[in-house]
């Protein structure tokens, strides 16, 4: 156990690719946490997907043993923070476990929108913030200009910013000594009843459910009987440990320390993030403030491309949930796509990550329906319902009003691309709240409907700014809006999986686009096929797949009959996979492709 004066707890705030993980690696190396031969690049991002995408999804901690130039030993606890807006919630709890933050900014790129939001969160958590200008080894680095930008855009003092190169290691020792000199030591009472924050929990195949804790008061020891104050669950601590980053068991954790415990906890979902852990025998009087629970805001259906994979999908979702209690899933059935699950996510990136992990770690081939947000529908009967699946939309005549969620979005963009970004926000029904400049960069704040953002906003923003715009948002409020459900009909039969809820002004355009897309994707058949988009009973767009004109084997003689029968068998098998719509059969692939194109 370390005395409080020799502990520093800090987080690193950085935009994707600005060098957070590389800096962490250098610090681990300098403090001897791992031998050089043990270092894999980006130790912190342990999931394959994190390493590949260069983003952090789960918060991780590392305890560093730092010997200061004056010979004193310090324990530096680095609490990693996810860098993406979808995981803002996880950022907030990482920050709550620390007293200070390193704000890492790429000295050639400058401040990005997510950095901005996370820094504000750190400020709200009373963090001491040390700006770090990374990548000064690059010829394009402009540390002075970026310093100015940090002051202009974020509004914090950057005069003491540390110029470093995490890649070459230059300036990293200065970062370590600045942590000791500039961050406050944690406070706490060793003799007081135990009061520890439940920062995070995850499932580890060897250890079982692992709970990450930050001790505020008292001492946490092995075999102690503890109580989770919110859930009132009782547990006996089995193991106490820290990550160096290697898993290292310790006897106890005292005030100001960060580490993990294991107990006989069966399910990650049983641990409420933000809960206060106290000793059963001698409980603390007052719990820590805790956090708002994270709630899914984006929903979509996930369907196995091969129906036989349904059970495997169900098991895989359950396994993923062991480590990520923030997404939800319920069984869903669609005539077009078969059996699948309706899933809720913290945001689009979260959706993408879960989908990618399902395909990569569980080898599942999936299709996702268009993302939807949660609509609040007031019915004529006075009843109010929440809706996140267009298929569940009540008949328009029964609806009195529909409200949709709006967000407050911040976009940082070089002024060369400001025009297209503004045009995009306007097209997406945005309302401008603010527009300011810092040097050659503009900061735009817009109010936008979330359903526009989950449609194709990210991709459009990226392409219209050539990737230079960064984007961050927070949920704002619900507002009434003229929303309609656009249904897609094939030969008069609705295709539930393709229906969508959109603003009335966009209904026709979006309906027409999907009809055209289906026209391209549905193979011709013996009979012509009408593809229509409709609001209620009113057709707003129509395309026709004309009848097939030619499909016959040119050459077929005696010896060929066996071989040609195989062709026929293939065609027959294909027909079995088709979905019946009225009097036509549409291959499921066409729907899958329509949805996949929608993702692009």
């Amino acid at each position, binding site marked *: 156990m370390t005395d409080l004066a020799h502990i520093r707890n800090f987080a690193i705030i950085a935009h994707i690719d600005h060098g957070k993980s590389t800096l962490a690696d250098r610090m681990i190396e300098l403090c001897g946490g791992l031998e050089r031969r043990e270092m894999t690049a980006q130790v912190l991002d342990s999931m394959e997907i994190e390493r590949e995408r260069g983003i952090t999804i789960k918060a991780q901690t590392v305890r560093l043993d730092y010997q200061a130039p004056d010979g004193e030993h310090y324990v530096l606890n680095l609490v990693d923070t996810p860098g993406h807006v979808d995981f803002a919630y996880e950022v907030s709890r990482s920050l709550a476990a620390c007293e200070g933050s390193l704000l890492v900014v790429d000295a050639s790129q400058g401040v990005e929108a997510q950095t901005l939001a996370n820094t504000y969160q750190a400020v709200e958590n009373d963090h001491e913030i040390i700006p770090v200008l990374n990548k000064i080894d690059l010829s394009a680095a402009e540390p002075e200009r970026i310093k100015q930008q940090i002051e202009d855009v974020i509004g914090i003092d950057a005069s003491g910013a540390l110029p470093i190169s995490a890649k070459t290691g230059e300036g990293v020792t200065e970062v370590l000594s600045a942590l000791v000199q500039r961050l406050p030591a944690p406070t706490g009472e060793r003799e007081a009843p135990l009061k520890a924050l439940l920062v995070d929990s995850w499932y580890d195949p060897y250890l079982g459910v692992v709970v990450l804790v930050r001790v505020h008061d008292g001492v946490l020891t092995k075999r102690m009987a503890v109580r989770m104050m919110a859930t009132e669950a009782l547990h006996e601590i089995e193991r106490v440990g820290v990550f160096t980053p290697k898993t290292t068991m310790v006897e106890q954790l005292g005030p100001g320390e960060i580490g993990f415990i294991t107990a006989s906890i069966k399910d990650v979902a049983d641990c409420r993030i933000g809960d206060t852990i106290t000793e059963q025998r001698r409980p603390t009087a007052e719990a820590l403030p805790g956090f708002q629970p994270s709630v899914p805001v984006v929903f979509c259906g996930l369907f196995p491309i091969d129906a036989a994979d349904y059970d495997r999908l169900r098991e895989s979702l359950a396994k993923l949930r062991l480590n990520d209690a923030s997404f939800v899933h319920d069984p869903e059935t669609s005539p077009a796509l078969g059996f699948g699950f309706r899933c809720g996510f913290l945001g689009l990136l979260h959706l993408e990550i879960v989908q990618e992990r399902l395909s990569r770690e569980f080898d599942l081939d999936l299709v996702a329906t268009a993302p939807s947000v949660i609509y609040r529908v007031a019915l004529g009967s006075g009843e109010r319902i929440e809706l996140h699946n267009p298929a569940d939309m009540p008949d328009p005549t029964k609806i009195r009003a529909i409200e949709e969620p709006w967000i407050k979005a911040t976009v940082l963009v070089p002024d060369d691309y400001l025009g297209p970004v503004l045009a995009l926000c306007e097209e997406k029904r945005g309302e401008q709240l603010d527009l300011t400049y810092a040097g050659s960069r503009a900061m735009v704040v817009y109010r936008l409907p979330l359903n526009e953002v989950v449609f194709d906003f990210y991709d459009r923003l990226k392409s219209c700014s050539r990737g230079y715009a960064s984007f961050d948002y927070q949920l704002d409020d619900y507002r009434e809006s003229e929303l309609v459900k656009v249904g897609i009909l094939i030969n008069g039969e609705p295709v539930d999986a393709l229906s969508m809820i959109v603003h009335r002004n966009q209904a026709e355009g979006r309906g027409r686009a999907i009809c055209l897309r289906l026209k391209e994707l549905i193979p*011709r*058949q*013996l*009979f012509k096929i009408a593809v229509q988009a409709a609001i209620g009973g009113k057709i707003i767009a129509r395309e026709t797949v004309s009848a*097939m*004109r*030619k*499909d*016959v*084997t*040119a*050459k*077929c*003689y*005696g*010896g060929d*009959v*066996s071989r*040609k*029968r195989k*062709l*026929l068998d293939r*065609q*027959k098998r*294909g*027909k*079995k996979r088709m979905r019946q719509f009225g009097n036509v059969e549409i291959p499921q692939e066409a729907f899958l492709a329509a949805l996949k194109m929608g993702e692009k």
Partner: protein
Amino acid sequence: MGAAEAAEYVADRGRLAVYIHWPFCRSKCPYCDFNSHVREAVDAARWRAALLRELDHFATQLPGRLVTSVFFGGGTPSLMEPQIAAALIERIANHWSVADDLEVTLEANPTSSEAANFRAFRAAGVNRISLGVQALDDAALRLLGREHDRAEATRAIALAQRVAPRTTFDLIYARPGQTLAAWRAELDEALAIAEGHLSLYQLTIEKGTPFHALQRAGSLALPPEDQAAAFFEVTQDVTERAGLAAYEISNHAAPGQECRHNLSYWRYEDYLGVGPGAHGRLSVARAGGEPALMAIRNHAKPETWLEAVQRDSHGNAETHALARDERVEEMLMMGLRLGEGVSLARFRERTGLSFERAVPPARLARLLEAGFLEMSEGALRTTPKGRAVLNTLLAELLT
């Protein structure tokens, strides 16, 4: 089929069509996926002996048949020594009775060296020559990897027409870069030369061929469906007006000039396959039951087949009795290619099922009503519209 199980094949009305496969080619054409092989040297004596031996083997199991046609296919059977053909034809006549109007077709390449043998083949008993001309355009012939040019081909056609009572030739259309107008002109020319029969194949890209590789690499494209349909429709129109209407998807003849041997395939009659990769459909008597229809497939690789025949007297790789639904599928697949369609009486005789029981009535009714099929005079036929989409139509009818 081994001698031990010596099942006796009963007559399919006593008639039998005999196919003999000569698997060798001088070079392999880039569009062809037939069982053809290029070999430095072919031991003619061994091949002659083996083909005769397999023929003998089947003859003991197929007594009392009337042979209506013999077809030498390949590969390139015109590369075979005419004496081999003579020996095979003679042996067939020794084993079975042959029809008065026995049709004996030889597939031939229109190169001058092969044309030099036409008279000898005629003397051997060949009475119908089928020439693989493929195009009447030198650039197209090069693209198709053919060894002859246009002039050589027209000379070979003229010679064949002088030598043999019946002739035909093949053309491939909708070739890469070919326009509809160019095809129309080529077709007019072909019709002016042809005597009674033409085979016109729309280019198909088969898996495993060089053309398939080119197509996948994006350097060879088939026309899109609407244009392919236009090519097909023009072909039907022009030939019909010239008096050579299609009697099968890709085969055109003046009345009475149809290829009887190929008609046996499409009518799903008994046929015997001799040689590497040859297939047969033969009805056999079964004690106390209805006759079975056997499907026989020979080893495709020439050397494998040859060794098998030397060892076992036959080169069969697989022999099995076709299940009823397989017979239904095969008969409809083949018969609906024909203008005359499928005789309902023969359907019942061959499959053991009435048509009504073999095909879901609602589906049939829908396809009849929509004008893809028609039923009259005891036969089910495709309409021209239905014939053009036969593959899909069959899947619809049989699923």
